[in-house]
């Protein structure tokens, strides 16, 4: 049986190591353009992979999740910002699941 505390400890240790290695041992800027490009793209790719299809799997009716994705993209595209985009997605799921 794997323990949640061991998982949390691993999460902490790895995040901590990544954050302190350059500050303590390396102490240099990262100049290599391929590495910089990779690090630049990672957040966008990983958040996109995390969002879809999970947004359809974490709700009771997948179609409600799909609509939430579309509404979320449109809201964010037109400058909705953090709160409005999140609330819009949430309302879409709540309302659709009441009626479908």
């Amino acid at each position, binding site marked *: 049986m*794997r323990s*949640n505390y061991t*998982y*949390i400890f*691993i*999460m902490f*240790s*790895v*995040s*901590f190591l*990544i*954050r*302190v*290695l*350059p*500050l*303590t041992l390396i102490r240099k*800027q*990262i100049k290599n*353009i*391929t*590495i*910089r*490009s990779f*690090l*630049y*793209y*990672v*957040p*966008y*790719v*990983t*958040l*996109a*992979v*995390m*969002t*879809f299809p999970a*947004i359809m*799997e974490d*709700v*009771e009716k997948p179609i*409600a999740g799909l609509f*939430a*994705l579309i509404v*979320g993209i449109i*809201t*964010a*595209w037109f400058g*909705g*910002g*953090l709160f409005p*985009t*999140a*609330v819009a*997605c*949430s309302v879409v*799921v709540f309302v659709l*699941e*009441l009626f479908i």
Partner: protein
Amino acid sequence: MNNNKHWFLKGLKDGIPIAMGYFAVSFALGFTASSAGLTVFQATLASLLCNASAGEYAGFVGIASKVSYLTMAAMIAIVNIRYLLMSASLSQKLPEETGLPHRLLVGFWITDEIFAASATVPGKLNPFYNYGLAISSLSFWALGTCFGAIVGNVVPDNVVSALGVLLYGMFLAIIIPPARENKILRLLIILAMSSSFLFSKLPVLSSISNAIRITILTILISTAAALVFPIKEDEDNQETGEDTSYKEAVEVKNAQ
């Protein structure tokens, strides 16, 4: 000493606008944690120790699917790998003589927003500025996770379903606005989402856990993108992928 106090207080104050955003995101994250089977205490502890939205989300997905410890380590490393760049950049920003304890503490509290605020300080960086920023903003990060996990345990199923997508909405609010300005990011997001979908549906591939799918696709697509579309010099200076509205708020405050 007086100088340290000045920077600490300035950090506390500049951390306030960041704190509000953190509270909202971590509330949603606390919700994910409770669905993944963490207790309120465990969720709060994870936030106090990890200080990362995508990183913690990945961790909770891993816990939910009971991945191996090695897989957990690999996925946390990949999802948080961008902090290497921020840490490297702050290593140039701190005074040369800064001691190890300060370096460890500054590193521990690197987040996208704290990095943006501290990297834009004129001249050398006083670590006490980071401590101020971290204490005022990240206490709300932990508090939000705690509240989210509590609420996640008590609300009825249809509300769970609706609140569960809050975090995805926030992820979209982070990645979509830069994608509107940059067609390579647009392409990558479409590619990432469609391959993630295919991976979860195709025979054989669909037996891979969510946690491993996130890790593998992030490595493959980001590596391909780095090789095919290397960024221009300094394109990544301020853009780290997290919510930029709070960064801007902090930058404006610093400029004043």
